[in-house]
């Protein structure tokens, strides 16, 4: 016996709220992408806990897919950030106002 399932969900929820905080408050493109990674990590914790709760390996399968999609999105996102930095010279998202 480990822990009640609600505690696992709580841990995942707290980490997810921290990720949302990072993505919303920080004014740095790299920190925003880091916040997205924190959120993905929190969801992975919830999925693996749920796989143990219901004895279903689908939870762990989905964490495998989350890992792959996170790697994809980070590589393309960072390539875009590097390109945007070379265009405008800063990481501050309020400087990207070319459409205005």
């Amino acid at each position, binding site marked *: 016996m480990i822990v009640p399932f609600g505690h696992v969900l709580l841990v995942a929820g707290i980490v997810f709220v921290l990720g949302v905080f990072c993505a919303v408050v920080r004014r740095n493109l790299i920190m925003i992408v880091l916040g997205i990674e924190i959120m993905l990590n929190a969801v992975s914790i919830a999925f693996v806990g749920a796989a143990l*709760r219901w004895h279903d390996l689908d939870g762990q*399968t989905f964490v495998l897919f989350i890992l*792959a999609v996170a790697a994809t999105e980070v590589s*393309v996102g960072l390539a875009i950030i590097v390109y945007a*930095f070379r265009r405008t010279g800063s990481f501050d998202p309020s400087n990207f106002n070319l459409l205005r």
Partner: protein
Amino acid sequence: MTLYAYFFYLISAVVIAATAIAVTRRNMVHAVVYLIVSYFGTAVLFYLFGAPLLAALEIIIYAGAIMVLFLFVVMMIRVEAPEEVMFPLRQWLPAAVFGLVYLVAAVVIILQTPGTEAPLKMLTASPRQFALYVFEHHWFSIEVISILLLLALIGALHLGKGSAKREQQ
């Protein structure tokens, strides 16, 4: 409370503390390194919940490739002056308040739902069982993900090469 329960609470505290510290760093390299600590804690949590292959993959892919990619980008782009206006109160207080409200709502919902007091039993899916399950039931998603990774490779290559060519001009 068994030994595994102590482990779970200790590692969860480490994960939450490391993530909270990582979110509030001004130096990006410090934030990434604290996040690597958080990912190690998550890998231990995966191992506790009976997913040893996922624990290894988390360390190899997440902490070992994705965070190192972040470090490469941060070190490649030399930032001369501290650019980020860090945390004026007017900016982070609403976000923190709303986050706390959501957290309280989540706590209430979790406590009210009848199925969540059930303690988890220790059970492990060995890599062989996990791999057999994945490739038996979800082989098509694996193919789609391989195409997705190919797309990411092509996209990153194109974006990187375009800016390099422009710099040479």
